[in-house]
């Protein structure tokens, strides 16, 4: 991952809220005093197809708004995983939601059943995208947890801040457990305030 | 995806109508489940429909007619359809 520029791609299917997640991530980057550009691809005009959000975070100026060499990739559907993983850096971070991604293209992937865990915990998958943010935060540290929490509170519908923050924390927790297995090493549990 | 690759998930025995669900096409809207007059259908944990009580099926075809995704199929065994009054 380059020092100054991080390219993140969140991919899944229509209703999973990944665009919102991308926006929150981007806003968090601003709260962290970074430069950021966020973009998304739409499928055909209608709903339900594959969905993709990209976030480029940098210290300096960002020109080209699309990811060209992805540092962090989150796949929340098999189709998205197959379709959008072609330009991940070798040393890039690969996170998959094993609820929907059954064929994982690399053994180095951080594999977490994000959606099913969310459903178990909160009764519905609605918060999977925020849980995913918790995961990303924990796995990559590209934006601070503090900034992410602020961005979440700012963007989610009024009245749902608390439960969303819980979802975020839940994601962090999931990630920590997974990383333990994944890396065989314990990750720090404290928030990476900057 | 072509039809051929869509594997039917469940079929009934020859006594009651044969219910087939093309789960690749099913979008889990729940319409078939909700409007089945005999509560034949249910949603599994992956939110895909399956025939929970196929033996209760009266072949009214309401699930078939209302499935927006052409994902459910009811084949009666040598019987005429029994179309329910709708309104």
């Amino acid at each position, binding site marked *: 991952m380059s020092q100054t520029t991080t390219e993140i791609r969140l991919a899944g299917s229509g209703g999973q809220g990944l665009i919102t997640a991308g926006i929150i991530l981007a806003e968090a980057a601003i709260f962290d005093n970074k430069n950021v550009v966020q973009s998304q691809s739409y499928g055909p005009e209608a709903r339900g197809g594959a969905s993709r959000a990209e976030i480029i975070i940098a210290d300096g100026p960002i020109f080209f708004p699309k990811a060209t060499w992805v540092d962090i990739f989150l796949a929340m559907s098999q189709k998205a995983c197959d379709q959008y993983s072609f330009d991940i850096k070798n040393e890039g971070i690969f996170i998959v939601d094993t609820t929907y991604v059954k064929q994982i293209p690399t053994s180095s992937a951080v594999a977490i059943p994000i959606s099913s865990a969310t459903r178990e915990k909160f009764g519905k998958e609605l918060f999977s995208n925020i849980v995913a943010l918790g995961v990303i935060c924990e796995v990559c540290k590209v934006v601070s947890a503090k900034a992410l929490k602020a961005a979440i509170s700012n963007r989610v519908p009024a009245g749902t801040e608390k439960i969303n923050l819980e979802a975020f924390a839940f994601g962090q927790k999931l990630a920590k457990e997974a990383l333990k297995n994944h890396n065989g090493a314990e990750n720090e549990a404290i928030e990476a305030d900057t | 995806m072509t039809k051929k690759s869509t594997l039917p998930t469940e079929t009934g025995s020859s006594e009651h109508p044969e219910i087939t669900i093309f789960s690749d096409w099913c979008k889990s809207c729940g319409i078939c489940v909700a409007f089945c007059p005999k509560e034949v259908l249910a949603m599994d944990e992956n939110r895909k429909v399956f025939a929970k009580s196929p033996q209760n099926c009266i072949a009214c075809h309401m699930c078939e007619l209302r499935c927006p995704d*052409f994902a459910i199929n009811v084949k009666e065994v040598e019987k005429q359809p029994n179309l329910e009054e709708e309104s």
Partner: protein
Amino acid sequence: MISNSQLVNKYFRHNKKFPHIWCPGCGIGIILGNMLRAIDALALDKNDIAFVSGIGCTGRAPVYVDFNTLHTTHGRALPFATGLKLARPEMKVIVATGDGDATAIGGNHLIHACRRNIDITTIIFNNYIYGMTGGQYSPTTPHGDKAYTCKLGNIERPFNISQLVEAAGATFVGRTTSYHTLQLQNIIKKAILHKGFSVVEVITHCPTTYGRINKKGSAVDMLRWQKEVAVDKSRADKMDPKELEGKIITGVLMERELPEFCEQYDTIIEEAQNQQQGKSK
């Protein structure tokens, strides 16, 4: 009755098109399926059917089915269909159009097709909103309801499509909902058999936009609502207006016989040719 498998086998295009693009629970697929059942029941030849649409979620219907299919521009399905029908009067021309496509940008073509009484069957998928563009109000959005361009409530009054097309000259007007699938098949059959311009308005649901912003619940909830508000014309005729408030009358609302456009044009051709022969003699 033809089963879904048979339907798919017989009427769907067998390449890379499924599952279709519509959202989970969307009524468009229901209407499409029952339209196909109606066509099947009439035993029409697929080669003789032209299925024409405009732009919108509804407009995506033709690509899936194995007819002569024409996906035109937003609001213009009817004049495309008019040209096609006049060029090929022997074909059955069926138009699928959303409420916006039919009555917003396409309103003028709709009333003129009615006036001409050209033998086209128009199915209006009325989901009270612009689905494809993400939920802006349409000319059929109920007064007071919300959409993403009227979050404080719609101040415009909706068209009553049936009244409008009748006043414009349509000779067959039917209405039903996506819940009432058998009635839907029935009305579409009659509409196709009717010689002249026929309109079938199908009240349907867009859970993704209209449903969400107006808190109408799931597709299932919205279908339940359709079931509740619908009153068959035969029953409604016996009810008093008070009782009918908030209800939607369904059935064949109007049918009349008037000369059809293409047939009349044939008489013009005859007359013109007679005159010409008269001249050249």
